[in-house]
């Protein structure tokens, strides 16, 4: 296996995804096959190849510093599982 159960659990914690006990084995297997596919790259000689950030041969377009967006406050707040008239409400996070 290219990826183990513990790693899957760790990734799930970082990604805030709930992976149930019954799913773990299947997820470990399918993630493992993704890693296997990607690993083929390490077999290829890439010495003369420039790292590529994007498959398209274009560069970033720039935007003028102007405000054109208007407030979406009511629509966005309405989409949240919990909100009052001003804030999104989430379980307490305090340092």
């Amino acid at each position, binding site marked *: 296996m290219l990826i183990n159960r513990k790693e899957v659990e760790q990734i799930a914690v*970082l990604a805030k995804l709930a992976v149930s006990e019954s799913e773990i084995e299947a997820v470990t297997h399918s993630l493992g096959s993704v890693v296997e596919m990607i690993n083929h790259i390490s077999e290829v000689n890439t010495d003369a190849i420039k790292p590529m950030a994007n498959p398209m041969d274009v560069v970033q377009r*720039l935007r003028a510093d102007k405000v054109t967006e208007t*407030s*979406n*406050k009511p629509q966005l707040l309405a989409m949240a599982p919990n909100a009052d008239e*001003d804030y999104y409400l989430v379980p307490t996070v*305090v*340092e």
Partner: protein
Amino acid sequence: MSKQKYETVIGLEIHTQLKTKSKLFAATDTTYGASPNSQVSFLEAAIPGQLPVFNEKVLRYAIRFGLAVGAKVIAKESRFDRKNYFYPDSPKGYQITQLHHPIVEHGSLTIEDANGNSKLIRINRAHIEEDAGKSIHTKYADYSGIDLNRCGTPLIEIVSEPDMSNAKEAVAYMKEIHSIVTHLGICDGNLQEGSFRCDANVSIRPVGQKELGTRTELKNINSFRFVEKAINLEVKRQIKRVEAGNKVVQETRLYDAEKHETRSMRSKEEANDYRYFPDPDLLPVVIDQAYIDNEKKYIPEFPAKKILRYLNEFDLTEDDAKAIAHDKNLSLFFDETVKLLKKATAKTCANRLLADVSSLAKSHNATVSDKIISAEQFSELLEAQATGIISHKIAKVILEQLWDSQLSVKEIIEKEGLAQVSDSGELEAIIEVLIKTNQNQFQEYKEGNMKMFNFFVGQVMKQTKGRANPAEVKLILEKL
């Protein structure tokens, strides 16, 4: 005094909020203090299908910073990476930043160390990234409230090399960066509103040891004073640990100004796996040398250069030159006023600006830079005194009236009858009356009691409400 056993090594990461109208990747308003969540586009709310579009102003501001600190690298090709972490004030689950190809690398600046010598502090890099929203913990009992207005506001994070050896140097460096970004006009520098924030990496090592000790990162330091306090506290804590035979643990610590302590932020440690990767939504930012050169015209005269000019051209004292040059608005006001002067000197201007105008501003809970007095008014006032129309004392009175007034100095002098009395006839008449009513004192004066000389000068001043020309009064009295 016992020889110091440990030396301190400090590096700073300064988050500078850029003064743009719109956000880094969306055309959303960035104005501070708006009602919660009223400045949030679908992008900042992480609604699927939104794409970031890079704000050119941010690129140009970052280049200007690079030019200002003499950066060896201003990247012709820079890129964006995703830093993945989960926190409610960042809905998309990652921050867009520049890990591998930052826009600015290898700059430097100089500060003054404890012995007054200049010391070079190297800047490792300055990269572009987005700010997060804010969590409100005090308003609700069982929840945290999230305000996404700040989410996506452009920042440059300025990372120093670990070149500072004590808290004072760290403060001097932070102040120098603050001065640079505010003089450039790329950041408003407002520490209270969080536009300029600092994290400090602090470690200690036995004197003479080459390798760096284990560092801790201090977060949440929002004033120059707190940087000094937090670092000194942390150094003490680390020494105490090491002396007790313990190791310093690499961790993030929160500075608590109220409790006067630093404490571990354990939550930060758990998630310390950011899984950086190139942001597939953004393309490489490619610019040419001409583009970089074009920004050079926006680099202003910096304080160090300005101080030299003030010393050489205007003969200001070093303290005055420094005080004016380090405050951008004050120096603009000074330069503007000096241009209008004819007889009055720049030296007097500096003097009055730092003494009279500053204390007046203070009494109004304002700063000179609020521009409640115009350079025209101020220069007129200095000229009026230089040409003998008014005394310094009256100048102060007029200054107070100029505050918040559209009147010219001339208008106030006329309206209030404040012009200096130099007319010897008028002054002689006043003195004659004084002699009559104070015959004993006059006798004593004639007998050579110089105290009485001052008594008569004082009385004339009192009668003319300070408007008498003292030189003229002296002449008349001496002739008697």
